[in-house]
């Protein structure tokens, strides 16, 4: 008697990517279910547009589908890979359409958008725990450090552009960014270790 294959929800991220590389559409669906809420949030945060965020997430997973065979787990975790691909594409769009007002409140985000907590996969639980932990640590950052970090990561601004926008000296911007990243790398070391 052959035991049934474990459900995809129990597979590791990397195992799913390997399955995607083999042409498994269900594995891609599982990865989508696992990370699309996070990536949609990132897309909306950067683009301040629900439809564009959905397009960017779509592009990200199509990119994964095409490039799964060349994915290298030694370079980055699957979640970080997806996050940074989504961020890169979203910032490209943002720069293209020259959006000035990037605040969520001005584009009227759908209030019905909520965290998808369906399913009981281990990864989803880990993601929930990871989110809570990161939010807590980000909340502990001084406002001035969180500000430059947000402008750099979510708005795609260079250090010089941040200095120009905020009126803060360039050296101070760099120092604040450095301090923020140093602290996060320290306090999130457990979460980072889980990704390695």
């Amino acid at each position: 008697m052959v035991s049934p294959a474990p459900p995809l929800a129990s597979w590791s991220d990397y195992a799913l990517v390997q399955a995607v590389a083999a042409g498994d559409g269900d594995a891609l669906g599982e990865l989508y279910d696992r990370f699309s809420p996070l990536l949609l949030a990132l897309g909306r945060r950067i683009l301040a547009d629900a439809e564009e965020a959905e397009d960017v997430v779509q592009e990200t997973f199509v990119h994964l589908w095409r490039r799964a065979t060349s994915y290298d787990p030694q370079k980055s975790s699957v979640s970080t890979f997806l996050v940074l691909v989504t961020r890169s594409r979203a910032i490209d769009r943002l720069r293209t359409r020259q959006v000035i007002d990037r605040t969520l409140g001005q584009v009227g985000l759908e209030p019905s958008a909520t965290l998808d907590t369906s399913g009981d996969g281990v990864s989803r639980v880990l993601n929930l725990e990871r989110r809570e932990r990161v939010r807590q640590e980000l909340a502990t950052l001084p406002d001035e450090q969180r500000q430059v970090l947000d402008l750099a990561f979510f708005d795609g601004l260079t250090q010089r552009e941040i200095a120009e926008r905020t009126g803060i000296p360039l050296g101070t911007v760099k120092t604040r960014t450095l301090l923020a990243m140093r602290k996060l790398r320290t306090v999130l070391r457990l979460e980072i270790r889980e990704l390695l």
Partner: protein
Amino acid sequence: MTEEDFDPTGLLALLDGEESLASPPAMGDPELATQRRLEVETLGLLAFGLEPVAPRPAARARLLAEVASIGAPAELAPVVSLAAVRGERTGAAAGLARGWGLAAAVVLGVVGLGGAAWSFYERSRFAEELAQMRREQEVLIATLQERDQQLAAEREVRQGELGRRNQALQLVSTRGVEVCPLRPVGAAATLQPEAFAVLYMAPAQKSWYVKASQLDPAPAGRAYRVWFETDNGPVFAGDLRPAPDFDLQFEAAGFRSLAMKGVKITLEPAGSGLEPTGPSVLFGADKMTVL
């Protein structure tokens, strides 16, 4: 690597492109690669601070439909083992090498034959050109030799002429030379009033010289002849040279001395006898001893 080496700005710029995501630089330093990996993962975690957003079910279906239309990743980028690739390349390379070797031999053979043919053609063409040049050279040499002979003959003639003129000049400039001018007479006085001649008699040199000027050229078949008038009748002295010289020079050998009353030039048929039959053209009356 220290914490001061951490450069999030450079890292963010590095991660702007997808390619840099796939291959962040490790720079050959394992410690640096580890640090970069930590930085990348730290950046990746920032997104986890956002409130997740549930996707629309239609979006998931759209994604799966799109990738189904694209085809499997393996079809896009077939995964083959390195050994297989190397094997294929080795076999293909061997066949290719044999093919290239044969092709190279054929090419070299064709090139060699072509080169030989071209060399033969060039040598033949060069030989033909050389033979043609030699023929032209021979023709040129013959022409130059002929021209040289002509020039030598002409030079000889001119040298003779120059010697004669020098002799005449020496004669007419000799001390004690007697001169007898000749004027137009008869019809010539009307037809050639400007014509004249001079007889130079040089007893010391035992020679004389006649020079006529502004005479019309003698008609065809006729010649101007010089005569000395004596008590015994005219004595033929000789024919004037044709135009433009119109002169006659005499040297002592074989000419007898005589008493001359005058000298005349007549127009006579060429090759006529020793008696004048034609009209007198120029005449000079002077008594002098002709050598």
